């Protein structure tokens, strides 16, 4: 197992984990209706990081570097900075590694209108990763995980394996993605966007909302002797499995997800699980697929939520962001409601959390699925 030492969330709901958690606990959503966002010719319901807020917060920490950073890089660096601030970790040590989870990085720079201030290499994920690690003077090359929407869980599984082998003492796992015309137009072309706030697992669910976020978890193989209130969460296990069925459509059987859950829960007492924090994108097929994968493992009675109705689908950030919020909630003995879920109806019935409720159990399971047929599950607990 590995220990969470610190974390941070940068999103529409705030620039600290606490701000995000408080807002979500109060039932506030960061999703808003935007007219022609990013010059996209239609309107969209999105969760966006406020530009002015980001620029101000970033200038206050960027006292020495002359580089012009992109929004993606600013959000990622700010999130790491704020997570590190709560610790005394020496980020310049060779025993600290960065693991970056993202789907599209600076892809908006492919648009000629956006690219004039940046060198051509900036569209490459490794270039962004270099700028992030060099901001902190970390000597190691970052590990970059780009595994569609499961990237945030895949990055945590990578951290678990590397830290258990004692190759590093600390892994700084960053999940980050920002939105652009590129991403919004693509999801719209799939007809998978909802213009209203999404309704995960609801019988009237009709699509997802996109969101942007940067979220950081600092993990260590070393137990934190002086944990902050929010840092007593450990990552126990995780697994990835492929559907081998379709590159963009969710599996019609939930087999891949079912395998990932089964592997992750080996030697786990199901009675200990407080919550399944699902992917829950609110597309008709995803949520049905998840209901099948969950039911195949006889977990259908465990309380299940999706946080997409608060912060949208944050792509490469989702796995990190949602793991943090679910963990903080569990430390508060709280199961967060699945915002947007009103009348749950999936192909296999699930126990959806419709209102915030208390739970004193110790474990939670985080699920993600994505394009390319990939599925991931990770198991965490509070100590």
């Amino acid at each position: 197992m590995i220990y969470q030492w610190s974390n941070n969330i940068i999103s529409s709901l705030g620039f600290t984990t606490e701000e995000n958690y408080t807002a979500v606990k109060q039932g506030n959503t960061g999703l808003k209706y935007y007219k022609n966002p990013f010059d996209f010719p239609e309107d969209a319901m999105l969760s966006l990081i406020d530009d002015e807020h980001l620029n101000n917060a970033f200038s206050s920490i960027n006292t020495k570097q002359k580089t012009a950073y992109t929004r993606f890089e600013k959000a990622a660096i700010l999130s790491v900075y704020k997570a590190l601030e709560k610790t005394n970790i020496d980020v310049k040590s060779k025993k600290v590694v960065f693991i970056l989870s993202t789907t599209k990085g600076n892809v908006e720079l492919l648009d000629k209108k956006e690219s004039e201030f940046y060198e051509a290499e900036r569209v490459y994920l490794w270039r962004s990763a270099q700028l992030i690690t060099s901001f902190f003077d970390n000597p190691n090359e970052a590990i970059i995980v780009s595994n569609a929407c499961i990237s945030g869980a895949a990055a945590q599984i990578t951290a678990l394996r590397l830290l258990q082998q004692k190759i590093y003492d600390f892994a700084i796992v960053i999940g980050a993605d920002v939105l652009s015309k590129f991403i919004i137009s693509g999801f719209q072309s799939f007809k998978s966007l909802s213009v209203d706030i999404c309704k995960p697992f609801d019988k009237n669910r009709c699509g997802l909302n996109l969101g942007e976020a940067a979220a950081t978890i600092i993990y260590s193989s070393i137990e934190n002797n002086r944990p902050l209130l929010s840092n007593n969460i450990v990552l126990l296990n995780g697994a990835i499995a492929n559907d081998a069925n379709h590159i963009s459509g969710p599996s019609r059987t939930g087999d891949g997800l079912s395998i990932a859950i089964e592997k992750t829960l080996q030697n786990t007492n199901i009675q200990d699980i407080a919550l399944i924090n699902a992917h829950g994108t609110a597309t008709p097929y995803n949520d049905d697929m998840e209901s099948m994968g969950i039911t195949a493992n006889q977990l259908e009675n465990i309380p299940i939520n999706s946080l997409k109705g608060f912060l949208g689908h944050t792509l490469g950030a989702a796995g990190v962001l949602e793991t943090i919020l679910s963990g903080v909630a569990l430390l508060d003995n709280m199961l967060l409601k699945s915002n947007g879920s009103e009348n749950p109806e999936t192909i296999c019935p699930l126990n959806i959390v419709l209102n915030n409720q208390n739970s004193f159990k110790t474990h939670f399971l985080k699920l993600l699925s994505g394009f390319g047929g990939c599925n991931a599950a990770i198991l965490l607990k509070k100590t």
Partner: protein
Amino acid sequence: MNINIASYCRLTNHKLEVNDIDIQIQKTEASSLNDIYRHLNLSYPKFFKMDNLSKAGFLASELLLKNIIIDKETPKKDMAIVLMNRSASLDNDRTYQTTIQDENNFFPSPSVFVYTLSNIVNGEIAIRNKIMGESSFYISENFSPEKIYSAVMNTFSDPNINQVICGWVDYEFNECDVLLLLIRKENQEKIPFNVNNIYHLYT
């Protein structure tokens, strides 16, 4: 138990080598990836919908597994796919960008957008061979045998995994750069899977 390189395929614009055998392909001017497809006498129409990255990875995987006894129809939970490259899906991302660049000629296509993720090539190989184990994609500035080795050994930390298709799959600016390896846990001693041997097969 030994961890062996059971098979490999090296595919670039100038070279096609499978398990020490050079394969000569009659090339037309159009596209050498399509030529390889025809050379292999495949009947897999989905191939023509793929972007260049997926075509390259898919063809290399077909050649990699050509002489391996593998039932394509049986689901394989013990097999994983671990890939890495430099340019992610930027080759296809640039194609997609042309469909949204001009407001007066705005035609985003879902069939192009779906390939704007690097790990779709894992999905294509998984679908073709019913591979249901771990599926991972990493990005690295340069080809790195150390990183490939480390990622594969991490994947083997799941005791249910016995074989891994792994390697480097890059396609950008019409340059194809692929090395795929089939790594297997076996009783016999064969070519051992290690950093030197990965490097040797790439160069």
